[in-house]
């Protein structure tokens, strides 16, 4: 069984989604790198922040 860690699963998922979306939505190499990094960080940091936010309501 692989990727039992949900954090690692989420990071790998975010990486692949960022690669594909950056290649589709930006024309140049530099813009792709910048946009891909932005998407990746938004997804990973956003999920972590939202996860801690939900922790406030944990029973």
């Amino acid at each position, binding site marked *: 069984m692989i990727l039992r860690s949900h954090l690692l699963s*989420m990071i790998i998922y975010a990486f*692949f989604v960022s690669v594909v979306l950056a290649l589709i939505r930006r024309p140049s190499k530099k813009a792709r790198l910048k946009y891909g990094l932005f998407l990746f960080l938004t997804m990973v940091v956003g999920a972590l922040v939202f996860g801690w936010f939900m922790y406030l309501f944990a029973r």
Partner: protein
Amino acid sequence: MKATFYFIAGWLIPGLGHLLQKKFWRGAAFFVSIGAMTAIGLMMGGKIYPLYLEKPHNPLQVIVNLFKKENPLTLLAFLADTGNLLLYAFARLFAFGEGVLERVTFEFGTAYIAGAGLLNYLVALDAFDIARGKKT
């Protein structure tokens, strides 16, 4: 017409629409990324959702049956999974991707497969746009 061909090629196999238009690196990147997502999803025990349909008694019954399932949201999962058309067809033909519900990775695996399918719709549309000259 040609654009539609590239769209269908990309829909069948991720990145094929780009490869046929000589966008080798982009096509390879799409194939590797979407292929890896799908492979990881299957290894995690994710499910490729089929379209469950009861035999309709009249044409309207077809639409009614779509929402008569235990969980109507599986219809959305089915639409996402058909984004990888060839994989979906193989999954139905050779009976894999049934999902291993008892695994802790089941939900994430299913999300990986559905995400890969949805991304492939975008990739196929990108190939269509390139063929129409709207993108480079």
